[in-house]
C-alpha cells in the first residue's frame, strides 16, 4: 500500500489516470456484499475512504493525540499543528484568502445552521426575504424555516424548469431586489444539476445580497474557488469527499465572520471569562466551542491531498462520463423518467422506472451487491413539485467504473423482470 497521496500520483501516466489502480486504495471496494462484489453507487450520501485517510487518522491517534491550543506539552503542540495545518490545507483547497476564514464544523448541515443562527439572526428582521431554490436539500431549507418562524422572515424560491432540473433565472434580479440573503446549492443531490453559482453570486452581490453556497455535492467533485465564485459563505462536508464523518467546513468572508456573534459557547471560543461576562476569541476560534474534531481535520487534510493528487477537473470529467453512460443506458427503457439536465450533469442520476418502485429496486439491488439510494433524498418539496413520491438514485465518484454502470443496468433489468413476473 502506498502512503500519503502517492498512489493517486502513481495512477497518473502522461496525464492519463488509471482509475482502476485508484480502487486499490479503498479497502472497502474489494469487499463482497450479500455474496456479490460491492458496487457502491451511493456517493452523494457518503463517499468511501482511501487507506491514506484511514492511515492518517490512525497515525494521529497513535502518535500525536492530545487536546489542541491550550497545552504546553509536546503532544498538544503536535495536535495543534496538525489541526491548524488542516485548516490551512482547506483554505488552499477552496482558495480562501486566509485560514482564518475556515471554520471547522460537523458537516454542511452545521455550517448552514451556523450562518442561519448567527449572521442571519443578527442581521435579518421581520419581513426580510431569504431567497432559496426549489432544489435545496432539507439542510438548506429547514434552518431558514426555523428562522422564519422565530423572527418572521419570508422565504422565496428560484423555480426549476421541470424534470430537466435547471434553475429558471428569468426573475432572478427581481427576486434578488427583494432579498437580503440568498442560499443555494452548487450541485443538486437529487437532480445532478450544476448551478451557475458564480453568475448568480455576482448578480446577488450587485443587489447587495449576502450569498451562501451549499457545496456538499460539489466540493470534492469540481474545483472550488471561493474568490472566483464570490460567495460570502460556503459549506461542505468531509465524509462526502473521502474524508471522515463528523468534520465539515464553513468558509466565511473574514469581515462577516468577525462581525457575527458566536454560534455555540464554552471552552476554546473565549479569551477571558468572568462570572458575569466573557470576551470572545478571534475568528475562526470564536465559532469552535469545545474540543474540536482534531482527528477528523487530520483525516480531511489527507483526503484533500488525495483528491488534489488526482485533480478535481479529471474527477468531474470521470463523474460525468459515468453519469452520461448511465443516462444513455437508462433512456433505452420505455417509460422511464430521468431527472436532471441532459447536458452538463454531475455525478448524480435520479430516475423512476415505469414498473418497479425505487424502494423495490434499491432493496433487490442491494441483494445483488449494488448500493443505491431510494426515497426523497432529503428534498421532499422538490419531489412533490416533480410529482413523484420517490426516485432511485445512482451517484458516482472517481473510483466507480464503466463495468459498474453495466452491472447496475443488468441488475435493473433483473429486478424489472422479477417485478413483472
Amino acid at each position, binding site marked *: 500500500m502506498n502512503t500519503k497521496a502517492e498512489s493517486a500520483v502513481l495512477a497518473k501516466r502522461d496525464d492519463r489516470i488509471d482509475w482502476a489502480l485508484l480502487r486499490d486504495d479503498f479497502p472497502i471496494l474489494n469487499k463482497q456484499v450479500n455474496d456479490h462484489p460491492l458496487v457502491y453507487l451511493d456517493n452523494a450520501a457518503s463517499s468511501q475512504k482511501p487507506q491514506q485517510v484511514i492511515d492518517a487518522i490512525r497515525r494521529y491517534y497513535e502518535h500525536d493525540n492530545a487536546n489542541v491550543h491550550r497545552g504546553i506539552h509536546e503532544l498538544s503542540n503536535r495536535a495543534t499543528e496538525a489541526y491548524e495545518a488542516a485548516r490551512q490545507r482547506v483554505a488552499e483547497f477552496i482558495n480562501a484568502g486566509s485560514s482564518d476564514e475556515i471554520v471547522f464544523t460537523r458537516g454542511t448541515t452545521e455550517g448552514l445552521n451556523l450562518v442561519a443562527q448567527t449572521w442571519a439572526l443578527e442581521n435579518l428582521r421581520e419581513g426580510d426575504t431569504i431567497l432559496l431554490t426549489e432544489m435545496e436539500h432539507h439542510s438548506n431549507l429547514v434552518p431558514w424555516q426555523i428562522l422564519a418562524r422565530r423572527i418572521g422572515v419570508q422565504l422565496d424560491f428560484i423555480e426549476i424548469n421541470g424534470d430537466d432540473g435547471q434553475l429558471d433565472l428569468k426573475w432572478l434580479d427581481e427576486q434578488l431586489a427583494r432579498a437580503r440573503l440568498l442560499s443555494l446549492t452548487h450541485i443538486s443531490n437529487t437532480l445532478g444539476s450544476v448551478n451557475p453559482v458564480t453568475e448568480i453570486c455576482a448578480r446577488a452581490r450587485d443587489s447587495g445580497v449576502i450569498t451562501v453556497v451549499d457545496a456538499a455535492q460539489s466540493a470534492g467533485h469540481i474545483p472550488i474557488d471561493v474568490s472566483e465564485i464570490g460567495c460570502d459563505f460556503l459549506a461542505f462536508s468531509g465524509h462526502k469527499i473521502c474524508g471522515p464523518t463528523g468534520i465539515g467546513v464553513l468558509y466565511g468572508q473574514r469581515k462577516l465572520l468577525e462581525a457575527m456573534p458566536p454560534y455555540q459557547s464554552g471552552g476554546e471560543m473565549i479569551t477571558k471569562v468572568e462570572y458575569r461576562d466573557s470576551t470572545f476569541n478571534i475568528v475562526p476560534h470564536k465559532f469552535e466551542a469545545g474540543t474540536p474534531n482534531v482527528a477528523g481535520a487530520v483525516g480531511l487534510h489527507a483526503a484533500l491531498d488525495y483528491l488534489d493528487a488526482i485533480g478535481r477537473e479529471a474527477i468531474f470529467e470521470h463523474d460525468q462520463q459515468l453519469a452520461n453512460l448511465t443516462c444513455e443506458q437508462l433512456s433505452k427503457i420505455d417509460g422511464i423518467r430521468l431527472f436532471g439536465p441532459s447536458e452538463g450533469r454531475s455525478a448524480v442520476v435520479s430516475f423512476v422506472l415505469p414498473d418497479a418502485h425505487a424502494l423495490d429496486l434499491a*432493496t*433487490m439491488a*442491494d441483494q445483488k451487491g449494488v448500493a443505491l439510494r431510494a426515497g426523497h433524498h432529503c428534498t421532499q418539496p422538490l419531489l412533490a413539485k416533480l410529482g413523484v413520491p*420517490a426516485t432511485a438514485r445512482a451517484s458516482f465518484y472517481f473510483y466507480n467504473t464503466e463495468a459498474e454502470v453495466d452491472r447496475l443496468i443488468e441488475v435493473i433489468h433483473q429486478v424489472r423482470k422479477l417485478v413483472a413476473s
Partner: protein
Amino acid sequence: MLKEIKYHADNLAQILEIEGEEGQFEYLIDYGKKGNSFLEIDRNENNKMSGCLAQVWVKSYKKEDKNYFEGDSDALIVRGLVKIITKAFSGLSTTEIKKVRHDIVNQLGLGPSLSARRQVGMMAMIDHIKIISKAK
C-alpha cells in the same frame, strides 16, 4: 404467535433456506399482487402512514366488536408485508390487539437484508394499526 404471521413465517423460512432472500422478495411481491382489493379512492391522505420510504395506506372498519384492516403500498415488497400485517390483525378485538407486541414482526423470519430495512417500518405499521383501532 398470530395464525397469519405463523403461516407466512413458516413459508418464508423455507424459502430463505432454499432460494435465499431473493425468493422471499418474490414471495412477498406475489402475495402483495394477489387479490389486491384496495381501492384507488382509499389511497388518500387520511389513510396514509407518514414517515415511510414507500407510500403506505391502511384503512380499518369495525364489525361486531372486531377490527378489520386493509392496506396497500406503491412498493411491491412493502405491499406484501402490509397485507400480511393487516390480515394478521383483522378479526381481533381492541383488547386482543393491545396485547400484541409490535416486535412480533421479528418472528416473520425475514432474511437479514429485509429485516434490517423493513423491521422498523413494520413495527411502525403495527403501532399505526393500534392507534387507528384505539388499542394504543
